[in-house]
């Protein structure tokens, strides 16, 4: 399982990035290791684009989990929906994000 995951991650990151970043911004980031910051910026945009492609419900649960630090149980309580609904939205949202970001299944 680890090998599969690692291979997927490597495949994903070896893909050519098609996201463009203004050169002025990259220059602004170019500190001791500016290339890392530029990579992170591109990565952040990919994640942003992935989130944008989700349904509002899927995006909401992922944002609450990853950017709000909520557990699935807490999210269900906050949204007033069954835990199973949160789990399903989270699975579908993560899977769609993976596909949008070019992470392919086997």
């Amino acid at each position: 399982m680890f090998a599969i995951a690692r291979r997927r991650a490597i495949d994903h990151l070896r893909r050519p990035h098609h996201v463009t970043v203004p050169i002025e911004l990259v220059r602004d980031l170019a500190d001791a290791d500016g290339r890392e910051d530029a990579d992170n910026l591109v990565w952040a945009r990919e994640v942003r684009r992935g989130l944008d492609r989700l349904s509002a419900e899927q995006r909401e649960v992922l944002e609450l989990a990853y950017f709000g630090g909520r557990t699935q149980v807490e999210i269900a309580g906050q949204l007033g929906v069954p835990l199973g609904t949160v789990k399903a939205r989270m699975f579908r949202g993560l899977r769609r994000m993976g596909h949008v970001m070019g992470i392919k299944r086997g």
Partner: protein
Amino acid sequence: MSEHPYDELPGLLFGELNRAEVTLVSDHLDGCDDCRRELAVLAAASASLRATAHQAQAAPAAVAGVVAGDPVPGVAAAQEAPSPAGPAAGERPAGPAMLAWPPARPGRRRGPLVGLAAATALALVAAAVLLWTGPLRSGRPSSTVALAGVGAVAASGQASMAGDGGDRRMTVTSAGLPALRPGQYYEVWLLDPDRGTVFPVGVLPRDGEGRFTLPASVVGRYQAIDVSLEADDGDPAHSKRSLLRGRYA
């Protein structure tokens, strides 16, 4: 549990399943190539989200702005200026903190792919143990809130909320914010003054204007907007140095 425990896979990654559920899912994974492939996709997507959420707090404001869906901020040289004497807001720093995930950064110099691969590996290896905002949507303007300087801070601003359905688009504008020192940034929060809790909205670009999209359900749980002065010190909590605040509910 359905034939394939797809919906349990995120919980497995997050460490939110109980022992019996972990056993069931793990036993299934042992014999199901399909679920293992799904888990690999989920782990990579999850690692990207975790790393990016961390970057939004710990990395340059530009990255955080991208995560928050802001337009790419203009380039501006760091300004040297006296630190503002922002008074403590008296609010709690214990709101929903960003996930304290190691800063997985895919830097080429440290070896390619180390960031995501490491995060993915951690998520999978520790699966049994371990383990925001959308497209700006047009919507009718619904309210505008004045933001006033906190304490001795001579700044002002406003925040407008718009949107329907599940999202709320918030636009924050401000003037007169204290100049930023290197390593400092402005951050926007939702605040519940009564409970003393906050929700991190995102980094406000140094020009004092930013756009954010929030789940309506989150907006509904708080009553005020707060703009704080933060330091890039790895601490995701509110600094208690509030600069602007306004109540919308």
